[in-house]
């Protein structure tokens, strides 16, 4: 019985090897760089049906990507106390509620050195439901990249192109990318120091 095992296995092995070598020779094309240069027609990634259903809320970006449209993750839904105008009215507030109403928990660690940003440098002074840029133009929270981009223009350029930030879940299908504030806390945008998720054993090579 063992013999049948061995001899038949060996036979397949030899046949397979001969046949597969022939295939490899036929399949070899140019280098990656050559193939990239030759590929200038856009790929229809919408043809990949499985990439169409993202279970997250998105908005159409007010910018263009490679001449086309793209979407960013919506932001307003994840701001716990939005709409801000519910509290930010002319109504009087009790001192005992002060801690809750003054955002005492927010620490600003944004700006160079001791030159920390003040709230109203990003938040609109009159209408708290909006942000506003240096020229006073109101900016929707869902499109905060328009605000961040006025100082961080290099990052914004890279983000528009795809070298900064990241796509959500799919490489194919409609382009959906994370908003600046999906990853960075606007009040303290630098990434934190922390323990790594795991560690590695030495390689056996």
């Amino acid at each position, binding site marked *: 019985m063992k013999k049948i095992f061995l001899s038949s296995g060996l036979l397949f092995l030899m046949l397979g090897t001969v046949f597969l070598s022939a295939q490899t020779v036929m399949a070899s094309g140019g280098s990656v760089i050559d193939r*990239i240069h030759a590929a200038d027609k856009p790929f229809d990634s919408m043809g990949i049906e499985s990439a169409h259903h993202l279970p997250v809320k998105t908005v159409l970006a007010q910018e263009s990507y490679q001449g086309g449209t793209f979407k960013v993750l919506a932001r307003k839904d994840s701001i716990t106390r939005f709409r801000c105008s519910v509290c930010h009215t002319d109504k009087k507030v009790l001192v005992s509620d002060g801690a809750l109403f003054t955002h005492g928990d927010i620490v600003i660690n944004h700006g160079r050195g001791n030159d920390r940003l003040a709230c109203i440098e990003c938040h609109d002074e009159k209408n708290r439901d909006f942000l506003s840029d240096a020229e006073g133009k109101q900016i929707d929270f869902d499109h905060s990249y328009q605000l961040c981009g006025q100082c961080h223009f290099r990052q914004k350029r890279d983000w528009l*192109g795809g070298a900064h930030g990241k796509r959500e879940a799919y490489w194919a299908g409609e382009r959906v990318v994370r908003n600046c504030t999906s990853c960075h806390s606007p009040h303290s945008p630098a990434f934190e120091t922390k323990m790594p998720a795991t560690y590695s054993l030495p390689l056996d090579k």
Partner: protein
Amino acid sequence: MNSSGKKEDEMKVTDILEKKSTRRSFVKNLSIAAAAGSAGLVTGGCVSLGKSEEMGLKWEEYFKSNYRLMTQEEKDETVARLVRLAKIQNDADIQISNQEPRENVLYGYAFNISRCKGYMDCVEACVKENNLDRKAKTQYIRLFEMDSGQLDPTSGDGKYFHEVPVEGKFYMGVQCFHCENAPCIKACPTKATWREPDGIVVVDYDWCIGCRYCLAACPYWGRRFNWGEPEVPKEEMNTKQHYLGNRMRMKGVMEKCTFCVQRTRQGKLPACAEACPTGSRVFGNLLDPNSEIRYVLKNKKVFRFKEELGTDPKFWYFID
């Protein structure tokens, strides 16, 4: 091979088996008969039904060919057998896909060394996604903590475990680079490893004989060998599998990063790229001029590791 059966004696063999028979199924039937005979001798015919089904499936599995030589029908059959075997042996409900590569797709990867913070969320996600052996702590991705100015991971620390990022250090991830001109493929004596048309370098785990030539040939620490039977707790197993990807491996076979073939052929990002909280990992179609990966290649300072070896990897490093 000769199903037309022109010669007399061949006709006879066909007649005896009462059906058209290829050489492969002929040998297979013979050996099943032999097995049934010997099993009968040893156990006296007391094989339970479940056991005999399992044995039958394993026999069929033993005689399947290299994945690249299978017809679509044979691919579907082996997948069905593996799903059934997982149910019988581990009571696991898994799905195994044999989804083919897509046309006009060539996967590429770019890694931002000025953004990576060494958090290792990618490594963790990869282990879970790809059902990597928890016992031997197999990982496809290595992250090296490097001094600024270095560019060779061999001089970095690949075993760090402290708060990251450390001031003055940067982090460099290494995994299989899916070389277009891959030395591992050339080294394999059984053609158990090859490059798919979409650029992913895969292993047929059932065809690999475990000689580890490929591991020695790879200049990038891309390959992992199963010295023991891989162990994954049943409740942690990823049941969405691909034949060439994260299906359970066995003792004595080689495995490696497959760009998460089970995900990427569905349009998803690889698990590492999805898990990275810093956006250091860019993945996409190199043949699409509008893809993010093409933007990086065109607009950023990129380099490939050990480019001079001529392996033509599809994995680039870039800086902001």
